[in-house]
């Protein structure tokens, strides 16, 4: 199989994520879309690592996972707080700050 297909997949995943952020309203889902984008990046890193024939990309993807995990922690904390305050996880409800 042509290795570039992995890259196409990665681009497709990234695009899905990027568009998902625009379309979905639930903060958790939006956040998952972002995670999807990060994972798409990871896939790209790993694929390139394979193409380039060195391990830098694979190492980088581990860093990414760790960072993503941190983001999850903080992100969920924030989302949960908001949910508790508002009884809603819709990002559209959180739109007091504007204009």
């Amino acid at each position: 199989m042509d290795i570039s297909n992995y890259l196409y997949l990665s681009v497709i995943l990234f695009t899905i994520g990027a568009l998902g952020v625009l379309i979905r309203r639930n903060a958790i889902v939006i956040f998952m879309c972002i995670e999807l984008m990060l994972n798409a990046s990871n896939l790209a890193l790993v694929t390139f690592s394979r193409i380039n024939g060195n391990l830098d990309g694979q190492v980088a993807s581990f860093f990414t996972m760790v960072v993503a995990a941190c983001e999850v922690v903080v992100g969920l904390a924030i989302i949960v707080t908001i949910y508790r305050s508002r009884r809603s996880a819709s990002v559209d409800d959180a739109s007091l700050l504007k204009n």
Partner: protein
Amino acid sequence: MRTSSHLVYLIALPLFSAALLLLLGRIADKWGHLLATLISATTFGIGVAEFFSMHSQSGANRAVTQKIFEWISVGNLKVDASLLLDQLSVCFVLLITGVGTLIHIYSIAYMDHDKDRRRFFAYLNLFIAAMLLLVLGDSYLNLYVGWEGVGLASYLLIGFWNQNPAYAVAAKKAFIANRVGDVGLSLAIMISFAQFGTVSFAGVQAGAPHASPVALSAIGAMLLLAAAGKSAQFPLQSWLGDAMAGPTPVSALIHAATMVTAGVYLITRSNFIFDASSTARILVVTVGVITLLFGAIVGTAKDDIKKALAASTMSQIGYMILATGLGPVGYAFAIMHLLTHGFFKAGMFLGAGSVMHGMEDEVNMRKYGGLAKLMPITAVTFGLGYLAILGVPPFAGFYSKDKIIETAFNQGGGKGILLGGAALIGAGITAFYMTRVVVLTFSGARRWKEGAHPHESSILMWAPMVVLAIGSVASGFLLSFGSSLVNWLQPVVNASNSVGGKELMNPWVVSLLALAVVVLGAGYAITKYRTVEAVAPEKVSIFTKAARKDLFQDDVNDALLVKPGKALTLGLVATDNYVIDGAVRLVGWVLSEISDVLRKIQNGYVRTYALIMLAGVFIGALIIWVVTV
């Protein structure tokens, strides 16, 4: 050229006296008028002394100069504050200081009850100083200073009683009409400088032969405009009638004898320009003829004695201007008429002032009548002036005015007949309206207001009148005897002794013709005004109505200048607010509208923000794609 160190005093003394009287204020009330008169007499003394010292020299050696200080020096423009007293200016110096002194004396009595008499005398001295500067300046620029200076003095004196709104308006009108003329003078100066690199009389004279005809005509036309403003010539004549708002001595000195003749001086002084440009000469004679008829016609219908005399002044100056346009021969006659006019017109104005003084400041001639008996000295002096202006031999006007008519005829051809004929008709009309004035005022029934007690004025007032009357009688003969004035002015104006080389009409014929029209005019007036109503009749011919309204001069100015000017002003005020500042506000408005749009885009939704980011990514990709491919 000879130099003198005294000339400056001619100007400095009255100037300082004026400043002193104004600065000291009420402290000087007691003696201010005496100081002013003394100073004026002193300048006359200096003038006489200079005249005799000049007279003792010969021909070309007579002119005297004095450099006072370097005034302006920038690039090749070098103008010194220098004075030039030559044969031409000395005539003026004597006229100004002489008549000026007489009028100072007259005013001591005339202005006796006015609590601002000191201020009046300060203005008079200011005028003397400015007028002397006008005639003594050795360059157009120095002349210009005096030129505007007399305008200021005239403004101040016309508006002397400026608490009266009408008088204040009259003063303003005079100044502004003069300013229009001043523009002409300043443009003439600019053209001269651009052409010759100098603005001194001598420099321009030396350069004139090298200049293009167009330039010379332009200078001439601009000088004429200046003269028209100052001398109340068509089309800038409208201010003079209103200027009679000033105290009568002022009318005599400034608006009859001296300032208004400055235009004649200017043209005569610039003879080298007009000699070189026939176009300019044609303009000059046209203006002269129009004005002399205009003034005469207006004079026939005026019931206000001062306005009648003012119209006459305008007309007489028209004669002088006409003369200056007749080529080298005319200058001397213009000056001669100017001098004789200075005597008789000043005398008549003082007479009018004397009458008003006796009639509680009544100016309407229809309310006079039969005053000769009660004011004999006034009547006699006025009558002598009257004879002089009519040109009855051997009174002064005969020598000067007839010469002008004669010279006009001698232009030859249609032009000669046109100019001469107009001048002749003018003489007839002059006779009519002056007779009217005399008849209405001094003879006939008494049409006085109740409570009027006409009486002869005090000696301080009649003495100057007598002196001027003597001048009205004798000056013409003295100036023309042996062509004395013509010869005297010869070095300055290149006037030839005879009336041109081509004497087309015998002088006697002209004189007889002139006398005939005068008799006609005077006779008609006498018959017409045997009986006069105290109130001006309403039902009069359209011509009379037109003349009463100064031939619609103010209406024309109103329609052509004032109304459009006011409309333009209002329009521009609105433009400034709505267009110019509006554009600025528009920029502000547009920016704040954009800002508002941006504010609305910032709608608080995360998804929108992400969308904006993603759009940014796409546009960025597009830019990079465009750049790199």
